[in-house]
């Protein structure tokens, strides 16, 4: 499980360095449109189910145009934080006022709001994952800096990201070593966890020291610079224009209900 988590981190990172239409769009544009998308999805009221469905067009387009493996994203969405499910599942239990009658079954309001939560969950989580899978992390940091997020924080993110892989590998070694020396649950308690973390911490601080010296040797004066420059192109403008229009359209008009009423007369 641990190994796969680490693998996922690296895999997402690798996906983000592909070269497709979606990957080439400016990170600022992708970040902004993702945020607008999420805000629109979340702004739907509690019982909305059908109105959310057209929004799946966006993740589908990102997946296909961005060449992202569907199963990978699906798996991540499914295993990720059960919190929404855990809280949402109370809705059908607590709210059983009837809402619709489907083929003899009565669907309660609680199930509607639960379905709404789960749809929103799928949409927002996949958007976050697809954003990172189609935009490299440094790209997102660049976008954040352009969006006036404080430099100290952006620099911290870049630094953190650079060292996650190094330290995750170290943590992986520690976990393997512990697994080999422990039996079942024995040896995996807090008593042995604390010194493990302590040692990892000390190694980390030593590493920071070495990194600092290396930075000084390369004429570090307290500022971090980024090299890659981005420029907004026509395609970027078109992309954000079209996405905002579609998001507004989907948000204001319930296409699903419309289509449903046309087809069923």
């Amino acid at each position, binding site marked *: 499980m641990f190994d796969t988590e680490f693998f996922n981190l690296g895999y997402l990172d690798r996906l983000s360095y592909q070269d497709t239409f979606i990957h080439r769009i400016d990170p600022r544009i992708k970040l902004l449109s993702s945020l607008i998308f999420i805000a629109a999805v979340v702004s739907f009221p509690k019982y909305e189910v059908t109105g959310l469905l057209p929004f799946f067009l966006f993740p589908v387009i990102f997946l296909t145009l961005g060449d992202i493996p569907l199963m990978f994203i699906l798996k991540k969405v499914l295993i990720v934080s059960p*919190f929404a499910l855990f809280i949402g599942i109370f809705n059908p239990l607590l709210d059983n006022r009837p809402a619709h009658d489907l083929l003899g079954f009565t669907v309660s309001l609680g199930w509607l709001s639960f379905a709404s939560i789960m749809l929103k969950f799928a949409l927002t989580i996949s958007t*976050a994952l697809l954003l990172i899978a189609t935009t490299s992390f440094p790209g997102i940091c660049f976008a954040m800096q352009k969006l006036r997020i404080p430099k100290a924080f952006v620099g911290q993110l870049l630094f953190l990201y650079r060292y996650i892989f190094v330290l995750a590998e170290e943590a992986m070694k520690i976990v393997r070593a512990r697994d080999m020396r422990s039996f079942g649950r024995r040896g995996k308690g807090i008593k042995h966890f604390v010194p493990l973390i302590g040692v990892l911490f000390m190694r980390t601080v030593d590493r920071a020291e070495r990194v600092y010296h290396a930075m000084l040797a390369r004429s570090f004066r307290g500022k971090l610079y980024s090299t890659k420059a981005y420029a907004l192109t026509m395609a970027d403008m078109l992309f954000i224009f079209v996405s905002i229009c579609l998001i507004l359209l989907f948000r204001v008009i319930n296409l699903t209900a419309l289509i449903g009423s046309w087809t069923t007369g």
Partner: protein
Amino acid sequence: MHMADALLSPAVGATFWAGALGTIAYCSKKLKESMDEKMIPLMGVLGAFIFAAQMINFTIPATGSSGHLGGGMILAVILGPYAAFIVMASVLTVQSLFFADGGLLALGCNIWNLGVYPCFIAYPLIYKPLVRAGSSPKRITIAALISGIVSLQLGAFSVVIETMFSGRSELPFSTFLLLMQPIHLGIGIVEGFVTAGVINFIRSARPEILESTASARPLAADIPLRKVLIGLLIVAVLTGGTLSWFASANPDGLEWSIEKTFGKPELPEQEHGIMPALKKIQENTAFLPDYGFRKPEAKGEGPETEKKEEAWPKVEAGTSLSGVVGSLIVIGMVLLIGFSIRAMRKRPNPQ
């Protein structure tokens, strides 16, 4: 526990985003004023450390389940509140992107819940007054334990508040509170013990690390507690003020902002073209007009209240059917678009 996008309303999400961003800006300013440049690599690498440490699970005594470190308190003790908050926020940002923990809108809430409380409540108000340079390990343990419990209780309480104000969950306030607080009491105790253990371990093994980080960090000696408290109070009042509109049940975020822009809760309707026609069709047929359910005619305009939901309209089989059919068609269309894009992309590059 990470808050999730799906449980949030945009208004609550945005409010906490504003709070989190404001705190980030404040901390960045503080760090800029008085930071040893040595702190930059130290903060970065310690962020990665928290990440790595969270990947190492341990079994929780008495329950048999496994838990992992939160890390906010350890960071606050080692780096001081400002740097610790920035590090914590960066860790949560990476988590929300790569592990989709919570989501992007909920990131503001998560930074607030897991960053502000350990760094600006528990550390300056509890840990710092209790622990001196020469304090005994026992004293450190007690201080860390109380801090861990308090910050996690506050964090859990915030999750409840955020969920309640968003109004997506049916859970009654008290039930939710009773669900969350005891769980997080346990988590807080564990977190407190781990924090204390790690700090004591470092203090006995390599005391100079703590000393050197303490000298490098800004404002190690005196945190302007009053300023922090006043700042928090202002944010709290602002948040409370903002939230209270939304607590008043009706206009959801988008409607509210549209109302503000156009002076009425709907987008201004176009006079001609396809919009009115579509609108008319929708009004006649949609079973979810006004983004909600059809209101009982009698209560046409009065302010929406609880009563509206109670006077629930009769079940209409016909419109339900159209909803299902529409859903199937929309899903089918989305899938079709996906498949055709895939198919089209496969063709041009034979390899």
